């Protein structure tokens, strides 16, 4: 282990630049710790506390930029310092030469007078004001921002309805309008399936599932997670649904959400009945009866939604597509049995580490089939909330974490953009001798990390080394949400994971089901409390 220092006298960069460079250094191979700060006494004390204060760093002055790297060896340390130089130089060029961008909505509209949609991503308090301005100027809105007050959301959506416009969001992370991907979206082909979704990753999951099956998207409309609450009343789900029912380019409609408030669900289902266009309804965890009574096609998860909609778009029977999925899931049983033999007695825990909130939710729905409860920071019901496990009680065996939750993203980028937090969790879970299965989602597309599988694979290899040193093996299961046309091609990403020994499944539902089958078998064997065959029930 060696510590390397670079002092750059009188070099100034903004704080975000320095934090990003430090983070980039930490992700380099062989780098254990790094600091990139101005050489003020307070910062020198900070790096001293981290064990990084070299003689050169200690001699730094407040106006000096101090870079310190602790690395496995000399080569890794020098490479990191060179990388820091390059990154800082690149940031400086970006800062000083980037093309002038509009500074306000008004100047953006002036620069692009033909635009008919505004994407708004500013702090929630200001987002509502910007969205209102955009709607008043006759623009549809994709409101990416969260933390918009509920009353503001209601008011904005009323205004949009009065003007015949869409107000997608707040907290709408994904949309595809006229073939243009907005927010976190994937490069999917155009086609005859239109979607309205209260879930960003749900929309990504289904649009990618359609692409896998050769079907394309006419429009994909995000509503924001609160749209179907009783307070908001589902105005954008209804507006999007009506727009797709009227759209001659759309033959099949898919609706995606967690279970809506009952009164809102009734309105949405009533609107489905008002049109002859087939509608696939994926209200995750909802009662199928009212949906079927409204002539909607109820599906239990995102994969089924994609399969059923693709079948309808191709003039095939959706029932056959769903039956085919069931058939395919049977192949997981022998695979689970084979994998389970690689585990040691006592390895009984399933740990799901998700970047996508809806993937976490969907996995929990599938894992309800397990005899043991699955806990989460974003649970299906409050009794399974992680913080409901009292101090002094053992950690639950089965945990699914939504790493995009507020408690994990305070002051951080979302895990779809920055996988560092999940990588650390992977290593932590590997140190737990009870861990049997680690379940992951890898989300590709615009806005996502340029190589999410690559960075996950590094952590997975390290985790397996930790487990192997203890005579254990950990089963990694992942599903990749993406397409070949994404900036991170799907096949390459999947191959990277397979090379790291990951069991790559075609979708999140299959991945969760396989994880459940293996875990259930280990519980049956390890604890001798159950003697049941593996179940594949949703």
């Amino acid at each position, binding site marked *: 282990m060696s510590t390397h220092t670079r002092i750059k006298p009188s070099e100034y960069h903004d*704080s975000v630049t320095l934090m990003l460079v430090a983070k980039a250094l930490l992700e380099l191979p062989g780098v254990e710790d790094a600091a990139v700060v101005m050489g003020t006494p307070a910062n020198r004390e900070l790096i001293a506390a981290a064990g990084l204060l070299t003689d050169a760093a200690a001699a730094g002055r407040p106006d000096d930029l101090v870079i310190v790297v602790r690395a496995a060896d000399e080569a890794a340390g020098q490479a990191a310092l060179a990388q820091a130089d390059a990154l800082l130089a690149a940031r400086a060029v970006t800062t000083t030469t980037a093309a002038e961008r509009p500074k306000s909505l008004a100047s953006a509209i002036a620069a692009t007078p033909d635009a008919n949609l505004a994407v708004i991503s*500013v702090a929630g308090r200001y987002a509502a*004001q910007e969205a209102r301005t955009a709607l008043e100027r006759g623009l549809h809105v994709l409101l990416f921002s969260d933390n918009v007050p509920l009353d503001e959301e209601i008011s904005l959506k009323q205004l949009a309805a009065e003007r015949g416009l869409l107000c997608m969001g707040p907290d709408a992370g994904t949309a595809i309008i006229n073939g243009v991907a907005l927010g976190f979206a994937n490069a999917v082909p155009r086609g005859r399936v239109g979607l309205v979704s209260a879930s960003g990753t749900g929309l990504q999951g289904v649009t990618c599932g359609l692409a896998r099956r050769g079907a394309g998207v006419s429009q994909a409309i995000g509503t924001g997670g609160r749209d179907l609450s009783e307070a908001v009343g589902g105005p954008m789900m209804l507006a999007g649904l009506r727009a797709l029912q009227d759209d001659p380019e759309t033959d099949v409609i898919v609706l995606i959400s967690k279970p809506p408030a009952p009164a809102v669900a009734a309105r949405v289902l009533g609107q489905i009945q008002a049109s002859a266009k087939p509608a696939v309804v994926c209200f995750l965890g909802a009662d199928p009866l009212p949906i079927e009574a409204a002539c909607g096609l109820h599906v239990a998860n995102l994969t089924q939604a994609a399969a059923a909609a693709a079948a309808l778009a191709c003039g095939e029977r959706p029932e056959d597509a769903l039956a085919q999925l069931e058939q395919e899931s049977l192949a997981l049983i022998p695979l689970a049995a084979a994998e389970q033999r690689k585990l040691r007695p006592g390895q009984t825990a399933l740990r799901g580490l998700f970047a996508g909130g809806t993937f976490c939710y969907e996995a929990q729905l599938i894992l309800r089939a397990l005899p043991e409860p699955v806990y989460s920071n974003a649970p299906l019901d409050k009794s399974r909330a992680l913080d409901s496990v009292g101090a002094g009680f053992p950690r639950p065996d089965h945990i699914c974490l939504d790493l995009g939750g507020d408690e994990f993203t305070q002051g951080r980028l979302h895990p779809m953009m920055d996988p560092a937090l999940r990588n650390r969790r992977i290593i932590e879970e590997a140190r737990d001798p009870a861990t049997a299965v680690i379940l992951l989602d890898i989300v590709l597309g615009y806005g996502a990390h340029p190589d999410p599988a690559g960075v996950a694979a590094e952590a997975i290899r390290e985790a397996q080394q930790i487990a192997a040193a203890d005579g254990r093996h950990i089963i990694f299961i992942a599903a990749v949400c993406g397409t070949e046309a994404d900036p991170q091609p799907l096949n390459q990403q999947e191959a990277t994971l397979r090379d790291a020994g990951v069991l790559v499944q075609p979708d999140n539902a299959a991945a969760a089901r396989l994880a459940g089958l293996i875990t259930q078998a280990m519980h049956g064997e390890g604890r001798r409390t159950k003697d049941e065959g593996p179940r594949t029930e949703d």
Partner: protein
Amino acid sequence: MTGRALASFRSVCDLATDAGEVVALVWGAVGNGPLNVVLNRGLEVVVPAGARFAVMGQVLRVGEVVVDLSRAARWDARPDWERLRARRGAVVAAARAAQRSIAGLREQRLLKQAGPAVAAAVTAFQQAWRQTPRTDLQSAIRDLRPATCNLCGLGPGLTPAGDDWLAGWLLGQHLGGDLRGLVDLEGLIIKIAAGRTTTLARAFLECAAAGEADEAWHELFDALAQEDANQQSDKSANQQTNESVNQRTSAAMARIMRHGATSGAAMLAGFFSAVEMLASIEN
């Protein structure tokens, strides 16, 4: 007068004289500020860090850039503190309402983003401030010194977040006026900053200690004072005005938060912390 360029950004070129004074050439949306020379258009070339500059007569030259200062108008960087203090109770109430309106947003997350050390140092400073006796200023100054030393120069960036927070806190103290021993405290912070932070951060702290602030802060103070005035008048008659004033407050806070990568947000956090302390003193 001669000096060198410290750093160039999208709309700012920071210069430091050989005597250690900071001047910022700014353009675009940045606007007036205690250190700013506002240009009517952006520089056409990037001034590299370290480039020498000279001011001869009314002309500033840095590399190929020539700035004619002869037609520059002087701008008063001090908000109307007397007017604000005269309405202090109500302005503090309006500021607290403004803070609540953005609770949990960027200005608070900033401190977490800057790292746990900054958040811990801020907490230590706040605790030290609350515990200091209000009658014995010398003891107060002595007790606050360690917490101030911890905060000054702490955090990444050309103006460390700890200094930004302190600058905002100092502006809040100006609103407090004679409630505490402001002059002594200003002196303490400036003395500590002289050896513990960057040239640029020290310059910002000196401005804040002198009660000087950027144009965006003037807008915020005006908006807060106006909210106070509106609250005193007939609500039904002024409903429309109240709405626009709320938007002015929001717009001013948004403009402050656009200052630097994180500096404006950290200053707001410091200001709101001072406002909370003022409220507790007055109560």
